[in-house]
């Protein structure tokens, strides 16, 4: 079957009533599971697997694609409205989405998220289709040295994101990296800081960490301040806000394309999670923006960057998954498991032997993203009301759902306790003027940096110059230097201007 023949076959299949229903059902599940912290599409897919055994594999794929496509947007809803990243890929959305809500611009933020998510996903899928013929070469581009440079790119943003008090910001990053060191060293396997406590052997789990950092610390913060509503003021006027959000995505076209491209690229690299794509896109947007100082205070640009990247990532991570049988993310690993349960063997031949299935997933993702975004735009006005409900009702609800999510993520009640500990820690950090963002960046990227650094050395048999011998890491390294120096030059320029 040729590429385009399979494409049309799958497209017709997608518009069969039964399959449309599956995609829609998947979209609903994806949205709900996305909204709820701790319940990601991984849990949703695992839940659906046994129900799909009897199904035609293609219908099953429409259902799965529905869940995966809608999930990141679902997660952004809770990130924007209640500062709780619904899934790991929405962490960066909190940084600007929630401050917008506090300003009374929740509708606008949701409008941005819906639009950027939908368009970002389509962007990622288009790149995926273009790259399918060269999938092997694309995957082989990235080894440990390239990996390390990408990670350093993300880590460099700790410096940029250190607001107000540089030292506190940097210390936050350091603390995050130290927290990531807990448990087995990924290289030597020795257990750090916690040899006697079995719980810590695998390190600190990301989901309870972010639930504590964002959701619970906000619960504590709101209780302490005694505010009655999340949004401090209501913006009245002819614009409902949602439409303004849609326009924002087109206003920040460059940011949108850059972030989508970064999201897709990071998605392609197997082994780097979606949270990383989100961060790197966000920080690059920050570094290249004309108003970097507004990031973290509720700039629409930040939401555009975060949300376009995490949906574009989906298309990117689908490339190694369907093209080569190597999961580009955790969700994709579950999808590969689903292939096997349906009697399909994933691997480099899937694209030849089951091209129609691959297209079914692509179309399923497109439809589900369109549905999710449409829902988002239509429902935004109602969702916005959350920010005007009395805080004394919101807080216990958010706390109960977050704690349940922290537990249900992998069935560990100690994870729930850890979330509480991180919640208090994060609250006191904020109270004393430490930015939470650098701590989270350090945590997410610290371990990956360690692994790729040592792997580069082992792979090259101890050659410290391995990073500068290949063209791609060298280019990335030079870019990194530019990005780090740029703000200083700009600041100099600005000072001259003002004087």
């Amino acid at each position, binding site marked *: 079957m040729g590429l385009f023949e399979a494409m049309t076959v799958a497209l017709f299949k997608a518009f069969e009533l039964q399959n449309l229903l599956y995609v829609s059902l998947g979209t609903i599940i994806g949205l709900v599971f996305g909204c709820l912290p701790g319940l990601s599409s*991984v*849990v949703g*897919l*695992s839940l659906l*697997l*046994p129900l799909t*055994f009897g199904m035609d594999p293609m219908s099953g794929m429409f259902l799965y694609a529905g869940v995966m496509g809608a999930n990141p947007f679902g997660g952004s809803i809770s990130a924007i409205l209640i500062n709780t990243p619904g899934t790991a890929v929405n962490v960066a959305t909190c940084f600007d989405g929630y401050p917008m809500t506090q300003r009374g611009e929740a509708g606008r933020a949701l409008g941005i998220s819906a639009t950027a998510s939908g368009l970002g996903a389509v962007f990622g899928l288009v790149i995926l289709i273009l790259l399918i013929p060269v999938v*092997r070469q694309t*995957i*082989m581009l*990235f*080894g*440990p040295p390239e990996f390390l440079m990408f990670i350093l790119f993300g880590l460099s943003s700790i410096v940029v994101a250190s607001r107000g008090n540089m030292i506190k910001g940097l210390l936050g990053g350091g603390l995050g990296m130290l927290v990531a060191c807990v448990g*087995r*060293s*990924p*290289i*030597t*396997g*020795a257990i750090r800081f916690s040899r*006697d406590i*079995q*719980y810590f*052997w*695998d390190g600190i789990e990301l989901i309870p960490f972010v639930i504590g950092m964002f959701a619970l610390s906000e619960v504590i913060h709101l209780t302490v301040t005694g505010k009655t509503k999340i949004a401090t003021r209501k913006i009245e006027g002819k614009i409902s806000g949602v439409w303004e959000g849609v326009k924002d995505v087109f206003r920040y076209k460059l940011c949108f394309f850059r972030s989508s491209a970064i999201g897709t690229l990071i998605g392609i690299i*197997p*082994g780097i999670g979606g949270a990383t794509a989100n961060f790197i896109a966000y920080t690059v947007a920050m570094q290249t923006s004309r108003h970097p100082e507004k990031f973290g205070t509720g700039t629409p640009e930040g939401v555009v960057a975060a949300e376009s990247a995490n949906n574009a990532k989906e298309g990117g991570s689908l490339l*190694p998954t369907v093209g*080569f*049988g*190597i*999961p580009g993310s*955790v969700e994709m*690993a*579950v*999808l*590969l*498991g689903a292939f*096997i*349960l*349906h*009697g*399909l*063997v*994933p*691997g*480099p*031949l*899937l694209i030849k032997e089951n091209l129609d299935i691959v297209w079914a997933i692509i179309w399923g993702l497109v439809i589900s993203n369109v549905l999710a975004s449409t829902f988002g735009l239509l429902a935004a006005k109602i969702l916005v009301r959350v920010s005007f409900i009395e805080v004394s009702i919101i807080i216990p609800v958010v706390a109960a759902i977050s704690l349940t999510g922290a537990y249900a993520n*992998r*069935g*560990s009640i100690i994870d729930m306790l850890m979330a509480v500990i991180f919640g208090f820690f994060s609250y006191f950090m904020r109270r004393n003027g430490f930015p939470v963002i650098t701590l989270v960046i350090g945590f997410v990227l610290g371990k990956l940096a360690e*692994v790729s650094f*040592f*792997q580069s050395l*082992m*792979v090259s*048999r101890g050659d410290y110059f391995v990073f500068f011998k290949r063209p791609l890491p060298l280019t990335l390294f030079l870019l990194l230097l530019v990005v780090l120096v740029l703000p200083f030059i700009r600041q100099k320029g600005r000072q001259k201007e003002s004087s």
Partner: protein
Amino acid sequence: MRRKSWQVFLVGGLALMLMASAINTHEAYAENYPEKDILWIIPLRAGGGYDTYSRRIAPVMSKYLPNKVNVGAKNITGAGGVTGVSTVFKSKPDGYTIGLAAYPGLAVASMTMDIGFDPNQLTPLAQIAVSEQALFVSSKSKLKSLDDLKKTKGVRLGTTSRGASMFSFSLVASKTLGIDSELVTGYGGTSDIIPAIMRGDVDGAVLNLTQLKKYIESGDLKPLFTFTSKRHELTPDVPCVSELGVPEATVVQDYKMLFAPPGLPKDRLDILKKALVDSFNDKELLEWSKKSSMPLELKMDAEMKAEIDKMTKVYGQYKELLK
């Protein structure tokens, strides 16, 4: 005012009723086992081999249990698979909790660390599958046989970090076969290592043979030899370690074994075993196994015990190195 208090009663009463019904769910001790759903614990993450096997077999098992109860699979992960097994160990031996364990991973963990329980006390239920391993290299590699590997100094083998099964496999394989290897650790798993081999970042790796069937067919990877006692049907041209004169190396295989908590009454154990035997004769399941190249291999009682003992012995010899 009157209407309000009526509402209070309604809502409050409803909440209490639901609460009572929820708390009462675990009062099922009677002759008629099984009376409620059985929990099947998967010690590793969703999406991997353990997860796939569990989610495929558990519903089939429900079909063959008396009283039409459900077998629900749930991932309880942590400490490289130890947490899930530990949860099985601590559960009530009432036959409502069973769980998979990764051997020899579990044996190695209990030898090298304090995992808080003795795996030998678990009630063995059945071995459900064995994943045969092979040493893979890139099809463009200059290394073409075991002899080439032995002659090369510092063969870079890609693997996960210490503590996971794959690390133990790579180490025991190198020691038993006499390969001077340098283990490149830190990979997340098979899927990270495949591109690493193709790029030439590492020279080879010990990986699951059937799982990589398609990579052999596509000509990306090539197995040099399999860690089996006979040539594998998938790769009739590839020698096995027994014919290369190293039968000890056959312990380099991943055994997926099902356990119940210590002290499970025999009548309940027998019911579970019978359901498993029936499941493994289920036509649909067997067909699936073939189609998706996920081999099934049911072993129970003495046969299962013998496998466990063999692994414990061989891996015990390398205890110090595995620490």
